[in-house]
């Protein structure tokens, strides 16, 4: 066994080498701008390169979980952040970032180019895009079953939609929370009664959007799902067209325009950022015409800048809800935990 020991001891060098390789990476020069963001973040290569060309900074991207998880990781490392800019904080969690003193103030000169709805945010954050959480329906299913698709949230408790709906758990999913907020914005104090009705009507709750949309919803291409109504985004039907393997004339799914809830996504400069100059350049860039025009095709959300043209499939297949539901951020923040706990009691327990 001693010979065998030596074999093992000899291999220690490998660990040492691996460690040395890991330690060698630290350099003080802020050549990199590090963006901390959620899993859904995306940017076209050409757009990313144009940022690097124009500013001379290298853009590094760290992705970690959904928006909520990304924020929590940033809160964990507040003051000694992993990156320079955080992107993807939406209204429902914004106040947590502000209360924790996570961000430095920055007012981008580009703010004046934004649509009026978005042009005066809190001084610590910059709006970058907006998306609407809407019911999506499987058009083929409703056609072949000769049933009218639901036209509003209230319809979902009707007997003809029994066992057809799948939603995300608001405790664990950002669209799930948005949908809960949509029902609260719509039904006010009677939201609990509404959810009891949904439960009695066979609503299925899953953990996250992935499972709901790609596994449970019958309308997503390649999905084994059996339920024709799902909580997703206003832009999802356009995604079905863009990512279809064969060109299609009509989208296989449709968003229900009534009862959509608006989420605005913000970027902010992390307090203690190593590269503050680069961070500002990146925030400015995210509001530029070039980045804003890339936002729909890459992330399936809508630009906040005025006069940015949408890609064709978006114009044809995605709806931009006229009058989306919204709740005041302060109200959401004061009640979120209580609402989610009540919801859990009513729907899951």
């Amino acid at each position, binding site marked *: *066994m*001693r*010979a*065998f*020991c030596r*074999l*093992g*001891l000899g*291999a*220690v*060098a*490998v*660990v040492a080498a*691996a*460690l040395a390789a*890991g*330690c060698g*990476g*630290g350099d003080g020069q802020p050549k990199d701008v*590090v963006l901390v963001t959620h*899993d859904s973040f*995306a940017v076209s*290569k050409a757009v*990313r390169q144009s940022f690097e060309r124009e500013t001379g900074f290298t853009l*590094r*991207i*760290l992705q*970690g*979980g959904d928006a909520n*998880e990304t924020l929590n*990781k940033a809160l*964990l*490392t507040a003051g*000694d952040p*992993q990156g320079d800019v955080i992107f993807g904080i939406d209204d429902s969690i914004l106040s947590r970032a502000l209360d924790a003193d996570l961000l430095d103030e920055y007012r981008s000169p580009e703010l004046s180019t934004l649509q009026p709805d978005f042009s005066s945010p809190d001084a610590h954050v910059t709006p970058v895009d907006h998306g609407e959480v809407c019911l999506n329906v499987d058009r083929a299913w409703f056609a072949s079953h000769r049933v009218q698709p639901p036209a509003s949230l209230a319809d979902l408790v009707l007997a003809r939609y029994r066992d057809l709906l799948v939603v995300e*758990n608001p*405790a*664990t999913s950002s669209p799930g929370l948005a949908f809960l907020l949509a029902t609260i914005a719509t039904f006010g104090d009677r939201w609990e009664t509404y959810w009891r009705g949904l439960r009695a009507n066979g609503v299925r*709750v899953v*953990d996250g959007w*992935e*499972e709901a*949309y*790609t*596994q449970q919803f019958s309308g*997503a*291409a*390649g*999905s084994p799902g*059996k339920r024709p109504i799902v909580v*997703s985004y206003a832009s999802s039907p356009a*995604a079905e067209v863009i*990512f*279809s*393997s*064969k060109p299609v004339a009509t989208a296989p799914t449709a968003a229900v325009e009534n009862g959509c809830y608006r989420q605005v996504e913000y970027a902010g400069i992390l307090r203690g950022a190593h590269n503050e100059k680069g961070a500002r350049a990146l925030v400015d860039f995210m509001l530029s015409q070039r980045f804003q025009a890339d936002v729909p095709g890459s*992330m*399936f959300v809508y630009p906040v800048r005025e006069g940015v043209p949408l890609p064709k499939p978006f114009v044809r297949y995605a709806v931009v809800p006229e009058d989306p539901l919204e709740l005041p951020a302060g109200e959401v923040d004061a009640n979120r935990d209580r609402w989610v706990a009540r919801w*859990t009691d009513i729907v*899951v327990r």
Partner: protein
Amino acid sequence: MDGHRRPLSHARLGRLATAAVPVAFLGVFFVWPLAAILRRSLVVDGRLDVPWSVLTSDTTREVAWFTVWQATVSTALTLVAGLPLAWALSRFRFRGRSVVEAVVLIPFVLPTVVVATAFVALLPDGVERSVWAILLAHVFFNVAIVVRVVGAFWAGLDRRLWDVAATLGASPTQRGMRLTLPLLAPALASAASIAFLFCFTSFGVIVVLGGPRYATFESEIYNQAVRSFDLRTAAVLGLLQLAAVAAAVLVSGRLERRLGGGRRRGREAPRPVGRQRIVVAAIVVTSVALLSVPLAALVVRSVQVGSGYGLDHYAALARETPALLVAPWHAILNSLLFATAATAIALAVGIPAAVAVTGGRRALDVLLMLPLGASAAMLGFGFLLAFADPPLDLRSSPAIVPVAQALVALPFVVRALVPALRAVDVRLREAATVLGATSTQVRREIELPLLARPLAVAAGLAFAVALGEFGATVFVVRADWPTVPVAIFRFLGRPGEDNVGAAMALCVVLMGLVAAVALVSERILVRGAAR
């Protein structure tokens, strides 16, 4: 006197050194980050402030009960399901045996989210979200552990013992109960403890197949830490889980030692004859068929294009996509690179660790198993806190990925080696030395051939674990260095057929990689050493 003492202290020094390597590695990459996150969670204004009430809450009780019973039942079922196949594969030689061994390993490395997804697609609506689905998925995942760990040990047991017992008139049942089981006990305890740990800390399966109704410690800690950012509750639950895992490891270690090791005098297994042929064939065919169904479902979905079939999703892996910052095929290279480095680290730390554990370092044995029992979420958070500054400014470095993977692979290396090391017959070496063999000859002619198979098993398992590792990797990986499981996860997170198709294609690639690794490690190491 003096001449007597010197070699003794030399040997002790060697033993200390073998223990120092794993202790240093775990100290830096496991204990330190864990301490950092616990300190952040539980120390308020310089004072320890533990919310003990968490321990007695109804939720904790429910979670504890469900975690323990599902892990126990899953482990028992896994043993029952895996033993026949371990027997068939380790005691007999037949055509395609190495292929079957490779197939068994595949489920083990697939990301849990992917397999759970395959189960959702296969199971009827009523079963789909139930405890049964969870148990079934756990068996599917962990059968490889039983087949590999028990099989490697079983193959080394001297067949003549059974021949002698049969000659002496022992019935098959008697041979099984009084010979096979006692001899296999250490390997069984080894396999069971790993399977138990895996089920105990199960996350992906619980979340997808159980839905919001079921929670293990692992999933509850994740919820509290990552989703609700209630670090205090998460820390208490994390400590509870660690304590439970440590207790389980201690018990299984004690069992393993009490049961002792078997004699090893490996010989090439014979071909099955007579009725054995039917039994072996039946076991192999049934097991492979059951394991293949979910795998086949993934393959089918990867070639479904619109309403027809084709390889479009595979071709798409070469193209840029908004889902990733790099073309998907980069993920395959990254995975191979990281897994190779992780295997090297796991072996470099694991071999001395196994030697030290065999030499009686029990505390080390427990310490080595703990990374399996620590919540990946807490450890990931710990990494973010501990490795923020030079000289270990690793939290944004690609080098942290193989380290995290090696942490998870390490217990497998040690578990695969320890029973074999224990069983190396001291007298064989002594006899060889007496007959004039040099230490190099002893190593080459006796130890390496005897340990080649467990080493191959260890390296293969480490590589496979590293390839499929998701929970820790996703916490530390950089977006421009995605691994295959991370890429799969990102694709599954986007709508549209192309994204789901790419995810499925990558699943199949991962399956192929694992199978190839299993086949190659078997061929090179076993055949090479036998020569």
